[in-house]
């Protein structure tokens, strides 16, 4: 059997997988009955519903003709990994990672790290421009979030502030 719409086929599979996972997870909580629903009742019903919908989407993807097969297309690994990576690096630098003994480096360092890694996701990379941008963002964020809004951010690395 040929897949007529790749996008629908895979999204259907995704919905089915998530639906089954939620329904299966729901059975570990008490289900109860209509009048006294337990915490598992609503997720179980929704999980089954989602699985059904996913199954229907997969079926449709195998049967209904489309013009170009609606391919999923190539994954943009470069922007994907750099954007998500920049985000994760920000979290690690800001809050530290006790499991590997990395102390919190604070907001300023985290902003430089994020800007640097995020910029690698683009087509062109210019170190000087990047440093200027990071400096502007760091200064702006410091003024807006720390000075004006008084948000509780670790600003500097803990080994400097103590």
């Amino acid at each position, binding site marked *: 059997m040929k897949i007529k719409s790749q996008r629908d086929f895979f999204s259907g599979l995704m919905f089915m997988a998530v639906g089954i996972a939620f329904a299966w997870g729901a059975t570990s909580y008490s289900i109860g009955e209509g*009048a006294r629903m337990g*915490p598992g009742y609503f997720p179980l019903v929704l999980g089954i519903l989602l699985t059904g919908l996913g199954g229907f989407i997969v079926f449709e993807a195998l049967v209904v003709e489309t013009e170009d097969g609606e391919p*999923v297309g190539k994954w943009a690994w470069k922007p*994907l990994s750099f954007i998500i990576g920049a985000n994760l690096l920000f*979290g690690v630098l800001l*809050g530290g990672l006790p499991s590997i003994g990395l102390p919190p480096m604070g907001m300023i360092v985290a902003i430089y790290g994020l800007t640097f890694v995020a910029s690698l996701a683009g087509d062109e990379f210019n170190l000087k421009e990047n440093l200027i941008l990071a400096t502007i963002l760091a200064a702006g964020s410091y003024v807006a979030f720390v000075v004006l809004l008084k948000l509780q*951010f670790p600003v500097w690395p803990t080994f400097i502030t103590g």
Partner: protein
Amino acid sequence: MDLVANLMTGFGVAFTPINLLYCFIGCVLGTLIGVLPGIGPVATIAMLLPATYALPPVSALIMLAGIYYGAQYGGSTTAILVNLPGESSSVVTVIDGYQMARQGRAGPALAAAGLGSFFAGCVGTLILAAFAGPLTEVAFKFGSAEYFSLMVLGLIGAVVLASGSLIKAIAMIVLGLLLGLVGTDVNSGVARFSFDIPELTDGIGFVVIAMGVFGYGEIISNLSQSEEHREVFTGKVKGLFPTKDDFKRMLPAVLRGTALGSALGILPGGGALLAAFAAYTVEKKTSLAPGEVPFGKGNIRGVAAPESANNAGAQTSFIPLLTLGIPPNAVMALMVGAMTIHNIQPGPQVMTSNPQLFWGLIASMWLGNLMLVILNLPLIGMWIKLLTVPYRWLFPAIVLFCAIGVYSTNNNTFDVWMVGLFGFIGYLFIKLGCEPAPLLLGFILGPMMEEHLRRALLLSRGDWSVLVTRPLSASLLAAALALVVIVALPSIKAKREEAFVED
């Protein structure tokens, strides 16, 4: 005339220089903070609440109301300019607003949002003043069965928001509902689907999903296209203000949005949000004038209607708060907190025991709206300038603001990991042609729906027919069913697809 006398009392209170000043400060602060992506009215009010402790009660509430409107308007600005809904009710604005910005029409979009909101705010204030009493009686008629049915209708309505396949949109709603259930179950205290992660017992944050799916997903998808094909913004900015044509199209949309918003805002449970979705649904159902841009491609009505609706809804959502003492949403819950700090017990007695405060607050809402227009129309030019910043500088900044916004909601790096995960999921959705807007609505309504369904069935002793034997509930469900049939009918389906064919 009671109404006039009451409003006079109100304006007498609000028009003192000191209260005008607080209202203005509130609007300015609210707008400035609301413009930051990921920080919506709830976060803004929560942050600025301590600043109002020292003020007299009336001034404190007036300033908070100003912050609320400012933040709401600021949220729309980011929604239109950078495709980031800072709060749930601007999710709809994103759809057409961002498309307008891409086509160089950010100015008219912002003006439409501002003017529509102002008009809706005026009407909402009048309704609030005139009908606060009688309208609460309608809210009393709504039992759990009715709420559940209303939400079903709202969710089905959200399906038409998606421009692609109907069944995928429904699946996205269900997925959203399920995501909304993650966290502690209010009835039994059981932490569901939390994998023993303490942070997950509070549920997944709205901001986390919105930033990840809309913000990161969009950026990754944009960057994956080569420079020429990148649909970011056209360099040309066509006019700052709406043209005569735009006004002609906006006007009926604003009127419809205002009417819907005022009606739905009274209902506790996310009135402003449902209003925005409903208004967009209605606009999409009306026929397009010849030469008009289709919805989802930058139609000005798609900005004007939901923006008016959510502002009218925001206004009338004060009714259940001020008359019943029931906060209809998180912002109002914070307002209750602020009132109790100042020793005011919200509820029906406020109107009689504290008329100065009640009417003063209502008058200051109108003033807040006026100030927002005055404040924001000249600022449009400045916001537009923001769009001329090259994309290679803009996207790291957006990533940064998302990360900071997400971190600041709970001061916890766990949310930063979660937004990364949802960024990946958002990109996956784009790749698979699944639209995220219905998911977000499902996510917000999920816990409420479950709660009302449980309550309705508990009262009926497990008899499901309660949903159709109560007339109000039955008619809401019938409307939902009719909507499905209309959308699913082949002839209309063909038309629906036609409307979304790329030019």
